[in-house]
């Protein structure tokens, strides 16, 4: 039997009808329609589904949706707030922290949680905080650099000028 509930995701309240066994990930993707959070495994090992629950990271594939009622859920779609792109997102693009992009939403969420708790993380802090998010493309190098860049006092490394993503034409693939 489905249960009526209200989930607050990225500051917006959504009325939903959920099976009590539904995971938070399923509820957000299938019922609310925010597909930025991904499903990459069955057992909280990959982190592609990472969301924030009252500011704390959670593997949403392994968290019951109904438990999130009354709590603030944040997904990748909510990270930039009113901005088009947040500093962290921009840094991921500039530092080569994005390749296939499937781990990116979860990575960004974990990095956001880290920078909230620890605005000046060491590289070791960054690496530990992102270890619940598997990336197969980047070797993590660009991701660690991006989080460093977005942290307090972080500076973009020397290098060629880069184009801001929001000035780049969209593609028409898919």
């Amino acid at each position, binding site marked *: *039997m489905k*249960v009526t509930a209200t989930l607050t995701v990225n500051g917006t309240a959504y009325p939903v009808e959920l*099976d*009590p*066994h539904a*995971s938070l990930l399923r509820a957000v993707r299938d019922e609310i329609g925010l597909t930025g959070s991904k499903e990459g495994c*069955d*057992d*909280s*090992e990959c*982190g592609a589904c*990472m969301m924030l*629950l009252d500011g*704390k*990271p*959670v*593997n949403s*594939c*392994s*968290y*019951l949706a*109904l*438990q999130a*009622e*009354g709590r603030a859920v944040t997904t990748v779609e909510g990270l930039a707030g009113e901005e088009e792109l947040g500093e962290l997102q921009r840094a991921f693009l500039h530092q080569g922290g994005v390749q296939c992009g499937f781990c990116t939403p979860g990575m960004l969420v*974990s990095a956001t*949680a*880290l920078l909230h708790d620890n605005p000046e993380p060491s590289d070791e802090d960054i690496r*530990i*905080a992102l*270890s*619940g*998010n598997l990336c197969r493309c980047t070797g993590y190098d660009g991701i660690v650099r991006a989080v460093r860049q977005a942290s307090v006092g972080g500076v973009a490394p020397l290098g060629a000028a880069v184009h801001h993503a929001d000035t780049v034409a969209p593609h028409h693939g898919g």
Partner: protein
Amino acid sequence: MTATFVSATTLEEALSAVAAGARAVAGGTDLVVGARQGKAALPDAIVAIDRVEALRGIANVDGALVLGALVTHEALVADTTVRERLTAIADASAIVGSHATRAQGTIGGNVMNASPAMDAGGPLLCFGATVTLRSTAGERSIDLADLWTAPGRTIATPDELLTSVRVPLPAAGTGSAYVRLEYRRQMEIAVVGATAVVTVVEGQITDVRIAITALSPTIRRIPEAEAALVGTDGGDAAVAAAAAATAAASTPISDVRGSATYRTAMAEVMARRAVASAITRATGGSVPIPASPALHGAK
């Protein structure tokens, strides 16, 4: 039967739901993952207990630290008393799963999951922790050593809820450490783990507790190893004897994570490192928290 879900806000609500057959869920890190892996289907009736205020918080009561069932690993690692007096618990909680596991996973859920690989289990056991099990009929206090009966099994009845874990603070001069074999630095499950709690008075080891993790059906203390160390000066020979006794008492399985032969050999290594770190800490030396990564490369 269709699934039901209630979210309790008071202990009474939670207990009556459990009494009616509901299964309690807090952080969900074991229950939901287990269901997704196909170990056991999610129970039809679920009661969420994560909003029960009475189950929160860490309190220092009568020489013991009382941990509410909802205390997370993250909170344990951050707690000053845990870090200073119950350091092995901090060692363990700091290396559970990932940052998300540590943020959501609770000590109550972790204890009741009764996994022989529970990282904080060995430290709690060695510190002589007791748990409070409560039902609508009343409550009882159980030694942790008596709680676990088999992998995934406890003596708790289905209508009982773990409400708190009481950990007596050890005597002055006590140091502790939890060390596990780590294939990776994060996202690991214990394949071999060892805990040591050692009290040193004027160069003599006056009290010692040693426990093994993932080396027997339940986490358990090794009296033979403790006997090999107590009364000694904690020198290399005594530590080696305790470590050898630990390995000898281990009854590991062979599986994809390692052969029984390897695990037995590693029981000795982990016990040696745990005891050495505990002695270092007991005698004023410094071993970073968590001890495991810091000890990589040690003898």
